[in-house]
């Protein structure tokens, strides 16, 4: 079982793996790095048109007391969601992708997983930067936006723990890959990202509060849109869900990864 200390001693490898991933990702594409901006931009555009225009969804009043920009309100939620789904999908592909390497030379199997995580976090930071930029443009800016960083950290831990387990299971049961795709779609709409929690019935609201993602999405809107602090309740949900997921995922992964590698 690899301890965090062992993994730390391989940090050069982790950095190199992440660099390799980033370097090779947009090789031979004309737009290159632009793609990492185009993707979220298009998603944001589509949701804004569908929900903001067709369905006439309204955003609440922002922290500066005047603006109501549906696209930016939506973007807050999307940044958090993209981080969540990105970490999980990358964890699944990192483990199967590193398989060839892991059967030929020894290094802790956590390394490629963390390298994948780093690439997703970089993408999230980029999106976070864009979010802050546009918030500044509409004059909705405050120091509370700095809290985005700890939120990213908590979300990464939460998603990474789940990703480690799914990545492991995916080697043995390919169903995991397809199931995850479906679960992600369901989860996306089971989280108040494109709609406000308040439009739901009290029962539905109560159910959705069991979804930790509700707290994460709520929290980023608190700090980046309403320029306020997350509620103590959501801090508790986020910290405990991140801790349980990361520790549990890490233990399961370190325990079983060597066995699974032999089946690659």
């Amino acid at each position, binding site marked *: 079982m690899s301890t965090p200390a062992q993994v730390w001693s*391989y940090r*050069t*490898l982790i950095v*190199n*793996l992440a660099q*390799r991933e980033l*370097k*090779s990702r947009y*090789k*031979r594409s004309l737009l290159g790095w632009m793609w990492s901006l185009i993707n979220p931009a298009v998603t944001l555009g589509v949701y804004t048109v569908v929900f903001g225009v067709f369905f006439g969804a309204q955003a609440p009043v922002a922290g500066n007391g005047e603006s109501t920009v549906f696209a930016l309100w939506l973007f807050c939620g999307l940044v958090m969601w993209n981080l969540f789904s990105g970490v999980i999908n990358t964890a699944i592909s990192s483990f199967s992708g590193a398989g*060839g*390497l*892991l*059967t*030929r*030379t*020894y*290094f802790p199997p956590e390394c490629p997983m963390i390298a994948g995580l780093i690439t997703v976090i970089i993408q999230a930071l980029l999106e976070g930067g864009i979010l802050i930029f546009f918030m500044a443009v509409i004059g909705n800016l405050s120091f509370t936006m700095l809290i985005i960083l700890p939120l990213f950290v908590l979300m990464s831990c939460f998603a990474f723990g789940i990703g480690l387990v799914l990545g492991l299971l995916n080697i*043995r*049961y*390919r*169903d995991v890959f397809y199931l995850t795709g479906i679960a992600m779609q369901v989860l996306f709409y089971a989280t108040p990202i494109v709609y406000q929690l308040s439009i739901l019935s009290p029962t539905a609201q109560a159910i959705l509060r069991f979804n930790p993602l509700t707290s994460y999405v709520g929290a980023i809107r608190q700090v980046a849109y309403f320029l306020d602090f997350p509620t103590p309740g959501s801090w508790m949900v986020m910290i405990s869900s991140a801790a349980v997921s990361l520790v549990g995922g890490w233990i399961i992964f370190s325990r079983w990864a*060597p*066995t699974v*590698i*032999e*089946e690659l």
Partner: protein
Amino acid sequence: MSAIVVEGVSKKFRLHTDRAHSLKELITRRDRNAGIDQFYALDDVSLEIPEGSMYALVGHNGSGKSTLLRCIAGIYRPTTGSVKVQGRISTLLELGAGFHPDLTGRENVYMNATILGMSKKQIDGVFDDIVEFAGIGDFIDSPVKIYSSGMYVRLGFSVAIHVDPEILIIDEVIAVGDEEFQRKCFDHLADLRRRGVTIVVVTHGMATVETMCDGAAWLDHGVLQQEGPAADIASAYLRRVNEHERAERHAEAVAAAEAATESGTVLEVAPEAVGEEWFGEDLEILDVWFADGAGEAVSTGTTGEPLTVNISYRAHRSVEDPVFGYMIHTENDTPVAGSNTRLSGIETGKIEGDGVVAIKMDQLQLLPGNYEFTIGINDKFVQHTYDRHYRSHPLAVRRGNLPIGVGFVELDATWDTASRSGQTQVEP
């Protein structure tokens, strides 16, 4: 001091690696799964590999050599038993493993070297050597996908040997690459060993085992058959391979004869076909001894004096045209000379019973030093070894009355100084 201690290692695998890739299969097959075939790729293997030695794992395909290498490298965990390793390991299980086709050679070198545990600074230090050794040249900044397979392999090997390992683990990869590169690799491996690096190789080349390795282990179906000095293991293994082949040929011939008998045709011809087809029982080397000009048995030779090497044999069955051969090594492993009756154009004819064959030298051309003689008897195509004594007959060569030069041998050469510009005649 042992660099690697393998203690009672067993490794169990499931035969059914493709099992239960869907939930339905998992559920329906659950109970049948309980007794599913498992097999031992390694069964209670124990061995010690001394520090600074070159150690070979031999055995036929599927004997568990590669599994053992992976256990030593830490990639596989033994099912039972333990592996203790002292020192930093570099593995070379597949050349260019981890190369990303879209990245340049340079980027891949850095990537691969970090996987093998080097820091950026260390790689910077040996980067030029890596490129130089691989002979990649300007291609180093091109994506590796445009490399020829040879370049790919050379770069991979070059990285692995330059990571300054304490233990280097190599799986049959040297067999790739052209002759020149192979020689370069062997030179480099010898160099590494001199610097105290422990090297473990899996190989099918018995010549490699004999000439380069100190120790060896022979595995068969996951069970350690024999462990010891490389030369002993190589000959034991070769003997087994030859026996197997003979047994197979015999079985084939018998089957053919039986088939012929059953079909009622060529009944009389069949037994004879067996005798010819089959290379006969062992031809055995009974003894090897040296004799001087007077025919007296000696244990030392003298440069410039006559020497005879006598080989007494016993043919357990008549053998057609066997080839007798010899090989001389210095005690420092350098091969000096070797030849056989076939190369000398001699037909030995039919050999039966006991007899003696001699290698006669009117003037021993070996210079003073300690040498080891290898004597072998092969079939007439030099494909099968009947018997061989590998470097087991030492000969100390002493200085005679003649003035001698340097090196291992005194060549039978003369000087011609008549054509030089001064036209002065000098006696050789």
